[in-house]
C-alpha cells in the first residue's frame, strides 16, 4: 500500500522575486544576484552571519529554506535537491585561481564550495537537521525522480518530512524552487502538482 503525501508549502526564488505559497515576500529590481540576495537577506530579517561566507548556490538555498523552515518544528526532515549546473559557478572560481602558475592562489574557503551538496550541509547546520542529504544533477527540472525518491524516504520512515526541489545558479542566473512534502498539506504530492507549482509560481 502506498501512503499518500502532501505538499505542505513551497518557495520560489527567481528573476528578482521571492515567493512562498504563491504569495510574494520580496521583490527587487536589482539584476545582479549578490546584490539581490543581500538585500533580500536584510529585508527578510534573516540573522545568520555565516551567510556572508557562503557561495552563491548556498546563499540561494539558505534563503529559500529559511522561508520554509522558519516556523518548522519537525527536525526529522531529509533534503533532496537537484540542479543543472552543480557547483560550476564556484568550480570556475577555483579553476581561475589555479590556471596560471603566476597567479596560483587556491583557497580552502572557495574549494570547499566546489561540491553541490555543501548547500544542503549549510541548511542542515542552520536548522539542526541530522537527516539524509541527496543531490541529483539533471539537465532540467525532473519532478518524477524527486517524487519517487521522496516517496521512498517517507515510506521507509527515513524521514518524517522531505525538503526537496531545484536549486540552480549558473552564469549569474538563479532559480530556486523548494517544497516540503509531509503527511498533511495543501496539495496532493504528485508529479502533476509538483510540475504545476514549478511552472506557475
Amino acid at each position, binding site marked *: 500500500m502506498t501512503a499518500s503525501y502532501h505538499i505542505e508549502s513551497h518557495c520560489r526564488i527567481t528573476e528578482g522575486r521571492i515567493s512562498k505559497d504563491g504569495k510574494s515576500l520580496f521583490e527587487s529590481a536589482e539584476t545582479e544576484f549578490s546584490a539581490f540576495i543581500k538585500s533580500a537577506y536584510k529585508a527578510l530579517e534573516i540573522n545568520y552571519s555565516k551567510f556572508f561566507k557562503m557561495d552563491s548556490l548556498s546563499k540561494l538555498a539558505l534563503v529559500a529554506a529559511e522561508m520554509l523552515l522558519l516556523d518548522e518544528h519537525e527536525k526529522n526532515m531529509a533534503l533532496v535537491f537537484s540542479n543543472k549546473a552543480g557547483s560550476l559557478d564556484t568550480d570556475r572560481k577555483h579553476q581561475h585561481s589555479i590556471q596560471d602558475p603566476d597567479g596560483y592562489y587556491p583557497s580552502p574557503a572557495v574549494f570547499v564550495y566546489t561540491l553541490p551538496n555543501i548547500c544542503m550541509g*549549510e541548511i542542515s547546520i542552520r536548522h539542526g537537521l*541530522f537527516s539524509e542529504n541527496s543531490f541529483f544533477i539533471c539537465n532540467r527540472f525532473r519532478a518524477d525522480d524527486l517524487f519517487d525518491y521522496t516517496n521512498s524516504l517517507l515510506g521507509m520512515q527515513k524521514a518524517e518530512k522531505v525538503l526537496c526541489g531545484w536549486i540552480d545558479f549558473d552564469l549569474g542566473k538563479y532559480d530556486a524552487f523548494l517544497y516540503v512534502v509531509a503527511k498533511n498539506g495543501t496539495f496532493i504530492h504528485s508529479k502533476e502538482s509538483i510540475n504545476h507549482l514549478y511552472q506557475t509560481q
Partner: protein
Amino acid sequence: MSEVYLSHNTIVSNYGFDSLAAVTNIMQEQSSLQLIEDPSILSKPVCTSRVNTEQLQEAVALLDPREPYTRLEQLLIVSLAKTIQASGLSLNERVGLLISTTKGNIDVLDAKSPFPKERAYLHTLGEKVKTFFGFHHEAMVLSNACVSGVLAIAVAKRFIHQGKYDHVFVVAGDLVTKFILSGFNAFQALSDAPCKPYDKNRVGINIGEVGTSVLVTKDSHALAKESVVLLGEASCNDANHISGPSRTGEGLFRSIGSAMKQAGVSAVDIDCISAHGTATVFNDEMESIAFNRAHLQDAPINSLKGYIGHTLGASGLVETIVGMHSLHQNTLFCSKGFEALGVSQPLNVIHKTTQKPLNTFLKTASGFGGCNTAAIFKKVTSQ
C-alpha cells in the same frame, strides 16, 4: 519488500581492468599507490594511484567509439561495458543508469583541455554514457561529495523498490586532477607518502582514480558468484561543519544505527567494517568515536585508502565491491599502512590479511558538507 542485490561488478584501476586484478593484489597486501612527479597536476611530487592511460585508450578503442571521449568518460565506459556484458541484460525500459561522481569532467575547465567547457556539466557526462550504451532512460547523476559511491547503491535500491526499475547499473568515477589536488593541498591534507589510516604516524591523504561499476538488481537469477544483499542503509548529516567532521561522530553514528535498524542486525552481527579511513586526524578520530558509540570497536575494520587512495565519488562503490569479494573469499583484508593505533578510541584495525568465515559487512563513508552514509551487506550463498 523484495531483496535487492549487488551483482556483476568491474573495477578499472591502476591494478588492471577488472575487479579480480584489484582484489588479488589487495589480498596480497600490494598497494597501487606511487609517487608521481607531474607538474601539470601539482608542482610537487604526489603519492597517487592512476589508471594507465595507454591501456585505457586501448580498451576504449576495442569498444568502437563513435566520438572522442574524455578521460573520465573512458573510465566509466570501459568499466560499465564489462559489467553490462557480464550481466547479459538487455538495456530495456526496466533498466536504469545511475552515475556517481563528485567532479565529473572537471578537467575540461582547464585552458589546455581539447574539450569544450560545457562538458563540465554533469548531466552531459550522463548523456555521453547513456548514449554510448543505448540506455532507455536518461542517466541519473548523484553528486554528494565523498559519500556518493555508497549513497548511489542506496539510491538504486530505492528506485527499484519504487517500481521504477528492476535493475540499475551504478557507475562511479572521479579523476586525479590539478583541480582536486590544488584544493586538498590548500587544506594541507595531501601526503607525498602512502597514507596510513588510523595510524599514529599518519601523514595525510592520497587521492586516487578508478572507474567502477556494479549491477544493482532485484532479480535473484542475475547474480554473480560474489553477490551480496543490501540489508539496510542510511545517510545522516552531522549538522555541524561543512569541511570538518563532527567531534562526536554524530552523523556517522546515526547513519550506522539507522542502517542496522533497517537491516534487523546488531553490532555482534557485523563481521567486519570497510570504513572511510582517509588518514586525516579529524576523519579517523571522528570514525573511532562513532564506531565506539555504536559498540563496533571489536569488529575487524579496514580502510582501503592505503591501496588505491581516496577515489572521491567512486570510493564508496569501489570499497563496497572489494568488500563483496572479501566476504566471498572469507578473508579480512589488511588495513594497509596501519601499525599503531593513532585515534583516541579503541578500534580492531586489521593488521594482516586473514582467513575467517564472513557473512556480513558494514560499509561507511563521510564527506564534505557533513554527510555520512552507512550500508550493511550480507553474502548470498550459492543456491
